[in-house]
């Protein structure tokens, strides 16, 4: 696998290219890229044939170990890797530890162990266990075991502990990775820890800088789950040229744009998934003057859509908007029929894939700033407080860098 970027500035929006994947050599991805969030090996609510109706392009999937580790025994005994086991072998996958869509419980710390939360309870993961799982899964990319149990409220002590133990975890994983025959075609990524503490983060970065890595995951900013969409970006980062920088989680689109300007290359579709679970549809993308949706989302729990026979967005090209009305979606959500979330997921993921296409176009044209202003307007209509917070973040960015 190879990552190239023409960016010479650090901490700026950049276009990159991911190529030469071992498993699927002719696949390429342009960054900023959004990974398609999966749970239990599938895109939530979408069977593979429906997912293919949503997008026929190659995609990279994000896979969390917490939703899939119960499959390991079967995969190991049947000698089948993850991509084949879940029937998604034509997609590149990236394995993370925790599920970005659900809150990871904090605490439960023991030396040498990371607690993994599955639907059957807590699993204590050691480096040996973790690398055994990785050898079974054979993901295209994965992150080294790390302790990212920090957030904006974490104490200094907790943060330095997380940096320290993550370095130890990385050291051990990297030795195992380097000596593994099986993992020759898999890429290992390092997790940058340090919460919102600049000094701690620098320690983490400086340590990882010495390793020959293709990329980094910015970890330790949140404990996952839906609330991530409400936190504005307040982080610092030191771009290491020619490496991918990944930030997982339910960031809202405004924060995504902020992070892209800081040089983050890869995100995932947790946000549209969480929006779908709330029975909401994304409407922030459309900037046409005659667009009926003034806000960034609409909610199908609202009765006003019961007799609205127009699509979510008349300019949207997704299968849902081309075929179905808001009234039908309202009915499906109202009677709790499964098709409601299927149709919302199709629309919301489509919107997010389009969002990243537009972002890339704007970076290439050097118009990302104007685009940000436009998107901001849609959010202001719904949530003025959020937008104000956002402005503050911009200032703090300057000081922190």
């Amino acid at each position: 696998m190879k990552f190239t970027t023409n960016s010479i500035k650090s901490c700026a929006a950049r276009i990159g290219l991911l190529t030469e994947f071992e498993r699927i050599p002719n696949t390429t991805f342009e960054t900023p890229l959004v990974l398609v969030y999966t749970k239990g090996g599938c895109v939530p609510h979408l069977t593979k044939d429906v997912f293919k109706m949503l997008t026929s392009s190659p995609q990279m999937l994000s896979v969390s170990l917490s939703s899939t580790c119960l499959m390991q025994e079967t995969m190991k005994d049947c000698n089948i890797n993850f991509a084949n086991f879940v029937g998604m072998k034509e997609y590149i996958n990236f394995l993370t530890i925790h599920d970005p869509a659900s809150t990871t419980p904090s605490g439960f710390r023991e030396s040498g162990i990371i607690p993994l939360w599955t639907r059957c309870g807590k699993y204590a993961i050691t480096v040996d266990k973790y690398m055994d799982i990785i050898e079974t899964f054979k993901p295209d990319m994965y992150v080294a075991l790390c302790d990212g149990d920090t957030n904006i409220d974490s104490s200094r002590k907790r943060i330095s502990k997380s940096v320290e133990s993550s370095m130890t975890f990385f050291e051990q994983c990297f030795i195992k990775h380097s000596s593994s025959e099986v993992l020759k075609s898999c890429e290992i990524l390092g997790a940058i820890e340090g919460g919102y503490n600049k000094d701690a983060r620098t320690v983490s970065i400086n340590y990882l800088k010495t390793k020959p890595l293709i990329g980094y995951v910015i970890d330790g900013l949140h404990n996952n789950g839906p609330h991530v969409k409400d936190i504005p970006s307040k982080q610092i980062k030191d771009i290491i040229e020619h490496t991918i920088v990944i930030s997982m989680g339910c960031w809202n689109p405004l924060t995504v744009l902020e992070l892209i300007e800081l040089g983050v290359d890869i995100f995932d579709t947790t946000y549209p998934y969480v929006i779908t679970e709330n029975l909401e549809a994304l409407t922030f993308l459309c900037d046409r003057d005659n667009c009926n949706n003034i806000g960034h989302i609409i909610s199908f729990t609202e009765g006003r859509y019961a007799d609205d026979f127009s699509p979510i967005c008349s300019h949207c090209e997704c299968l849902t908007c081309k075929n179905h009305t808001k009234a039908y979606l309202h009915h499906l959500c109202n009677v709790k029929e499964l098709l409601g979330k299927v149709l919302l997921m199709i629309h919301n993921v489509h919107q997010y894939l389009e969002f990243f296409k537009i972002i890339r176009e704007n970076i290439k044209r050097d118009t990302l700033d104007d685009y940000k202003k436009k998107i901001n307007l849609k959010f202001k209509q719904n949530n003025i407080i959020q937008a104000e917070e956002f402005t503050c973040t911009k200032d703090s960015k300057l000081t922190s860098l």
Partner: protein
Amino acid sequence: MLQQGKSPLLFEIFHECKTTKARAGRMALVHHHVNTPVFMPVGTQGTLKGLLPQQLEQLDCQIILGNTYHLGTRPGINILEKAGGLHKFMNWKRALLTDSGGFQMVSLLELAKITEEGVKFKSPYNESDCMLTPEHSIQIQNIIGADIIMQLDDVVKTTTTGPRVEEAMHRTIRWLDRCLKAHQRLNEQSIFPIVQGGLDSKLRSECANQLIKREVNGYAVGGLSGGESKNDFWKMVHLTTNILPKNKPRYLMGVGFATDLIICSALGIDMFDCVFPTRTARFGCALVRTGQLNSKQIQYRKDMRPIDESCECSTCKIHTRAYLHHIVTVETVACHLLSVHNIAFQMKLMKDIRQSIQEQRFPEFIQQYMLDLFPNKEYPSWIVDALETVNVTLL
């Protein structure tokens, strides 16, 4: 009754089995044609358990069911009227059939009471007294706009005996006449009367004989598949199809198990419906020729085969039993995958039935199917008896 213009249902029989009473044909309906014998999946609330209309078309579904009671409650008739009918509301371009709403009312609402005027019930939302009359049922179904609509019938529990069965049978006939009179869209929708009469041969015959005097485009056999013995069940079907005219489609309500589909096709039934294939999918059950496979069971944990190696559905082409085992009842996708398979299973079975009738090898098809199902030849007596009456002797 005078029919003006083109009939909303044209039924053609292409092949008749020379041994049994089975026939293979085609119904031309306003929205789509339907090859018979057909199984119609049930999409109660204007959707079929998480599947897109496009997926149903890919599965070769030509007609699906909607439930009038559910649709009339939510989204409600006003919304459906504004949408221009159920086809447009759910964006389903092929054929639809709606029931009368009576059956659900009696089975779902404890306080439903049947009077000569109609079904009296308390609204589940505001406790007010409501009445579903035959006229009202047709009026609602006219708004929903399905290709085939059902008369309101007087439903009694299948195992009921005594004068109530006879009363219900006579009332069903009286209500049919009220339904036919109330029907407003003669060129677009066909009302099917429903043969009632419980498990009493005399009452069933009388009901069927009365109904065939009315000018309609097809008939339904109701009041069966409700817990009666299989012996009573097939005899009632056999007796009814003997009376109903050959040139009109016959619809056996609420029947959908594979064995029943085969035997009742042999007894001359053309249409079936049942919630079973999609309901059982929700619990992780996949239909296979030999019965059911519950993917939740521990034995499938490391089973790397598809549900059915011979199945052409997208689920069997992509996924293993082991993968399904791990996501069933956890991810909604598992439910969708099993629904796809189960509907594909029903569609394939009906296609095999139609094809074997067409090729004059339906008796052999039945023999082989039953032998596969009962390899030790311990056939249930009702299957042997039912097939004997249509001249098929099992191997």
